[in-house]
């Protein structure tokens, strides 16, 4: 029974959105807009729920004294700082100047620095990979080496040839595989959405 109700909701909302895309009708647009508003609310609730779960997890880590307590304290302090800056009386939320300063002067540079270290960590991981899984790592490292050579910033005729080869690799084999994956995923999603909308999975009840 519960699945039937769920399937009914999916069918009605899915068809409503589809028909709204096909027909110009103010009432349909309003109804589709209301469904969309509900989706936005659901996404916001999921984000708040995720944040609350994260806080609960790290409070538990600090309370139990195991794991990386220092990291948990830093994370909770960071969350607290942003929340206080954005939610204090008179603040303008995510556009508040203090929030913007925290983000622009602290969060973005720290995150960028961490990502910049990926270059070094990745090379270290490849070295370790050769010890643990030599065959797979050889394949990956070989492909990476070819791509690096093709992207070398060399000028002149050699540079033009390398750039053209890099473009061919991107446009033909890579794009072909990627598009195949995308089309396959698209077909699977369409089939599973149609099964849900037509309640064809009711046998599972």
């Amino acid at each position: 029974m519960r699945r039937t109700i769920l399937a009914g909701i999916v069918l009605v909302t899915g068809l409503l959105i589809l028909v709204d895309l096909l027909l110009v009708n103010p009432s349909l647009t309003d109804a589709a807009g209301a469904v969309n508003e509900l989706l936005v609310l659901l996404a916001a609730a999921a984000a708040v729920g995720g944040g609350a779960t994260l806080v609960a997890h790290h409070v538990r880590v600090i309370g139990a004294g195991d794991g990386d307590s220092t990291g948990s304290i830093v994370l909770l302090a960071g969350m607290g700082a942003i929340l206080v800056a954005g939610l204090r009386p008179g603040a303008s939320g995510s556009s508040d100047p203090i929030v913007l300063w925290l983000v622009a002067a602290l969060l973005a540079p720290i995150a960028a620095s961490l990502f910049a270290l990926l270059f070094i960590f990745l090379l270290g991981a490849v070295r370790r990979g050769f010890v643990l899984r030599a065959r797979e790592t050889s394949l990956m490292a070989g492909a990476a080496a070819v791509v690096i050579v093709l992207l070398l910033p060399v000028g002149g005729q050699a540079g033009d040839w390398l750039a053209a080869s890099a473009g061919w690799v991107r446009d033909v084999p890579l794009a072909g595989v990627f598009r195949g994956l995308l089309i396959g995923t698209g077909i699977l999603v369409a089939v599973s959405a149609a099964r849900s909308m037509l309640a064809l999975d009711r046998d599972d009840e």
Partner: protein
Amino acid sequence: MTSSASSALGSQAAARLRPAAPALLLLVLLVVASLLSGGVSGLELASPDRSRVDQLRGAIADLPDHPLVLIAFDADLGTYPEIRAATRAAIDDLAAHGAQLAIVSFTPEGRAIAAAERERIARAGTEQVPADLGFVAGAEAGLVRSVASVVPASASGPVIDAIRQGGGGIGAFDMVLIVSGSDLSARSWVEQVGTRLPKLPMVTIAPTFLDPELEPYLRSGQLTALVATLREGVAFAEAVEAASGRSSGSIIGSLPMLAGMLAALGVLAEAASRRFSRRGPRRFSGRAAS
């Protein structure tokens, strides 16, 4: 403290530093390469194929007088450095064409980068700071909602007024520049906004990994322009700089790039040769070393 004790401490410190020595050497190499980058000939980071550059510059040049342009900032912190030069150049180019700019983000990471970029423009004081439309929650549902209404109730200013006069939604804009990189890329814009506003020109700057995904949309005409590799981005930034005579200060030097790439190739070759020589070609297998 005796000299033997101090030398023991020195050797202990050297032993502690030894594992980090390769990484430190690499950092020093990159710093030196960055400092020397200006005077090296024979290196060229910009793509020799300028068709993508011409497409994006043409889309900006074709805009009407004082157009309203929305910058959808949904880059990813990990890949943004790859497209930073092109993004800043595009904002400069739009400002030079008298565009009225507004920034919006649909992802938290994009919002962080957008806030940092707005701060940078405000600090530089050389051009008008884009109007801030903030962060819109709800991912793709938020994107669909923004087709009808994208302006926060509390926002004000001349650009905001112009958007409200145009209906208050994404349809009020003459063009959208999508700074991609996160989950909500130009593909989501084509799917969710392009189907509802088919006449709205959409151009995008994206990191290389998104190129295979976005290329079909460019060829079908759903995207007006696409700059999607570091080399295309550098070529675009150089073209904008050459046209305006003003540096955005963010073009990556070719020498540090070459140094990093050669170091990476060196590490790959060293690791492979060490492994290969230790086990020999006949015993080369995927199993863990015993």
